[in-house]
């Protein structure tokens, strides 16, 4: 089936739709399954239930239980068998139910999946996507609000991405599945439900491109996933005070597309990086270090990080004190501007 024909199959004749991210991801998965019969889904409760977040809703009915596998409840088993299926020529897309549940599969991801092509001296590809709903803001219990992306970004052999909006979710999911490398696909679950326009005709940019989502000239602010909407809120508030923030959606955490970040910092001279994850040895640390190395003469102030604290994710009742808010971002913006 040609991509255009398949596209029609998914979207009908509409050029775009207003969808929540869950539906956009569902459409992206469906499109990928229509495009390539080797694409299969694996995970806990992803069959008749459609996943605890309903991202795979309806897919088992359409594609059957040989392409949508409700697996036993074992994350290492899911990842390890996905590796074997990829060796056999399949393109598995694994769902990890919640961020904090990925660690039973961590060894298979870091010791096996990430290294398999390298160990085989290029003799095989590992087109496995691991979807992980992540992040806070949903008031849930322990192990359900984590942001573990740095562990995976630190692992050679993996690609790590996170969309911030439904359009990117739709396209990045398909791009991740088409990738011949393993992709850890972090889905910001607090952004699962707000709707946004998904344009079916074109992806716009490659999987690993970062993107300026709001232009400004005073301070560059960078984030990924759910943090992008918080940065945009901060920029709205700053604008009322006469300060313009340039907001960059990272989109890809490994590799990081530094081009737009460096270009922006050369313009603004100031950078604030925001993330839900603990700040110590984090994605934000890597961005700060790289910008310091490559844009030293452009900087008018130290690069500042606004992060979750270096503590376990707290009880939900106090999560708003833990998660970077527009105010905390603006506090860092003020500090950057004070230099």
């Amino acid at each position: 089936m040609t991509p255009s024909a398949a596209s029609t199959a998914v979207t009908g004749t509409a050029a775009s739709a207003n969808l929540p991210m869950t539906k956009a991801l569902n459409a992206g998965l469906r499109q990928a399954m229509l495009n390539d019969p080797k694409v299969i889904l694996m995970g806990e409760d992803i069959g008749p239930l459609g996943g605890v977040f309903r991202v795979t809703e309806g897919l088992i009915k359409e594609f059957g239980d040989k392409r949508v596998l409700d697996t036993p409840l074992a994350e290492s088993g899911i990842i390890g068998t996905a590796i074997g299926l990829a060796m056999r020529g399949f393109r598995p897309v694994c769902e990890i139910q919640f961020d904090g549940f990925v660690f039973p599969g961590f060894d298979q991801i870091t010791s096996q999946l990430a290294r398999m092509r390298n160990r085989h001296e290029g003799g095989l590809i590992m087109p496995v996507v691991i979807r992980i709903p992540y992040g806070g803001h949903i008031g849930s219990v322990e192990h359900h609000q984590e942001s573990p992306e740095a562990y995976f970004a630190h692992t050679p052999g993996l690609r790590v991405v996170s969309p911030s909006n439904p359009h990117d979710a739709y396209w990045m999911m398909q791009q991740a599945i088409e990738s011949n490398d393993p992709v850890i696909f972090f889905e910001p679950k607090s952004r699962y439900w707000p709707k946004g326009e998904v344009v079916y005709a074109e992806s716009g940019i490659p999987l690993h491109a970062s993107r300026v989502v709001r232009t400004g000239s005073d301070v560059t602010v960078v984030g990924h996933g759910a943090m992008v909407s918080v940065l945009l809120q901060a920029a709205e508030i700053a604008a009322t005070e006469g300060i313009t923030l340039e907001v960059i959606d990272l989109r890809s955490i490994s590799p990081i597309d530094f081009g737009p970040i460096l270009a922006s910092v050369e313009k603004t001279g100031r950078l604030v990086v925001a993330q839900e994850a603990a700040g110590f040895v984090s994605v934000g640390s890597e961005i700060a270090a790289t910008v310091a190395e490559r844009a030293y003469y452009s900087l008018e102030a130290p690069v500042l990080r606004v992060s979750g604290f270096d503590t376990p994710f707290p009880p939900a009742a106090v999560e708003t004190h833990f998660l970077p808010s527009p105010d905390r971002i603006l506090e860092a913006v003020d500090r950057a501007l004070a230099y």
Partner: protein
Amino acid sequence: MPATRNDASVPTVAPPTLPRPPHAAAPHAAALNDDGPTVRLLSPSGEFIPSAAAEQYLPYLDRLTEADYRRFYRDMVVVRRFDTEAANLQRQGQLALWVPSHGQEAAQVGSAYATRAQDHVFPSYREHVVGMVRGLDVVDILRMLRGVTLGGWKPEEHGNFHLYTLVLAAQTLHSTGYAMGMTLDGSTGTGNPETDQAVIVYYGDGASSQGDANEALVFASSYQTPQVFFMQNNHWAISVPVSRQSRSPLYLRASGFGMPGVQVDGNDVLASFAVTAKAMDDARAGHGPSLIEALTYRVGAHTTADDPTKYRDPAELAYWVARDPIERFRAYLTGRGVEQEFLDSVEEEANDFAADTRRRALEIVGPEVSVIFDNVYAEPHPLVTEQKAWLSRYEASFEGGQK
């Protein structure tokens, strides 16, 4: 109510009649009893005395020709000599490490010959002769242990013998996923034994404690994979005896996962062949997975970095050396009338093989420095590309090129 010895629901094993080996094998010793569940065709002294449990496997011996018998013997002898030579190479600083297979030759040769060309084999890291049987040049194994590669061969070009996996039991899940793929793409269970495929995965008594081994058994059972779990119980996980891994015979675990389990005398090459032949046939025919526990013994060290004299009773070693798989099969072949000239020619071939191994091992050359960066990703990755270029420039900056 707590289970008791007399509770019919508790699997019991008959008391041993053979001498009970010292501590490591103690909870498993009953399995060595001829009246027990163990499938055995050859007695320790090489007489053809099938155990009661062996009866259903006797027809599988009909597949073997006289040449097969000789080949079994030849492969066991050659790989043991190879094993010794590789250990010598390590002692002389030519290999970083060696992983001996001494004592486990019968379990490995017998099971390997039960596979067919279309099958896939997932080894752990001690199955040198399985690779040899599948067409691997075993010098390729030395390449990894000489530190010039993390892999060593292309499985698709060497009998579908997959790469060694050094994290224990990780390969059990890969093999199960691979077998799931065979089912999904319709390459198995069609009823044509010439084309139907199956998977055999090797792991050990130590690895049986890993979560991955247990998850692989769960997935295999759920998806009814065409797969054989071939567990070599060599009684020692480095310095820890099998009694620490399990208080009951390991093959009994199979029933808990919903698949057949069988215990075989892994030092009996014919029994190992017959049991595996049935299990692989069943797997190819669509009857699902099964587990084989091959009772054998790691006569040597875990690796050349190990010192088993610190933790093993010499009497236990002696017990198992007296049950040596090669001695046993030689006695059997002699009883069948195999001439001394053949046995001598195998010795000669093994010595030649070892000498050739040594010569070729020393000729292994290191890879290009670019191997650091190549094949980390299938598609371009800016960080890796940049670092590769940087290292090249940096090393070229030294007088005379590379530092």
